[in-house]
């Protein structure tokens, strides 16, 4: 069955430290993966998608099919990065495509 797993409920780092939010997925097909972010008192929104291979707000994520992982990384965390981060997997046909989410990881960046 399709599944997204984020093993850490909370990740706490100091400002300037590197950050890695872990995400593993289970899917027999070709995965499309995403990271969503929810800042305090804001809506859940798309942060980045693996097919774009982009860096957003200093964050990058590389799809590793061998390890079935899509970890989110940032070399130097900022206080404004504190938020809830969800990894998500898109699967299914174009008509019935579903976006399923992991359990979420709260990132806390301390000053």
């Amino acid at each position: 069955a399709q599944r997204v797993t984020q093993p850490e409920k909370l990740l706490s780092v100091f400002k300037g430290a590197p950050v890695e939010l872990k995400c593993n997925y289970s899917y027999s097909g070709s995965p499309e993966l995403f990271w969503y972010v929810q800042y305090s008192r804001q809506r859940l929104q798309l942060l980045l998608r693996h097919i774009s291979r982009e860096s957003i707000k200093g964050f990058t994520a590389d799809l590793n099919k061998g390890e079935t992982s899509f970890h989110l990384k940032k070399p130097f965390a900022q206080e404004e990065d504190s938020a809830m981060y969800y990894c998500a997997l898109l699967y299914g046909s174009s008509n019935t495509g579903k976006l399923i989410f992991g359990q979420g990881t709260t990132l806390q960046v301390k000053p």
Partner: protein
Amino acid sequence: DTAVSQTPKYLVTQMGNDKSIKCEQNLGHDTMYWYKQDSKKFLKIMFSYNNKELIINETVPNRFSPKSPDKAHLNLHINSLELGDSAVYFCASSPNVGAGTGELFFGEGSRLTVL
């Protein structure tokens, strides 16, 4: 203001009652969703509609009945509320059929508390 809007934001009610949450999007999107976020922040898909047609129904109890009067609205009606229904319910929309490019636009959430 273009967005996905949900009402009410907060809802406190007794077990056994029936309640509705409304959702509207003015983004011109074809597909709308309901997600449930439980107390552990786990976000789980419940339903999706494409242009008023039910596409996804994720083994949700029959007490939950979505209704889409037009493609800009997707309401969620819950009968005989139970304690376990307490959660934050998120409405979302996407510009493409199904989940399209994977970019969903979320509402602010409706926190339902069942006493």
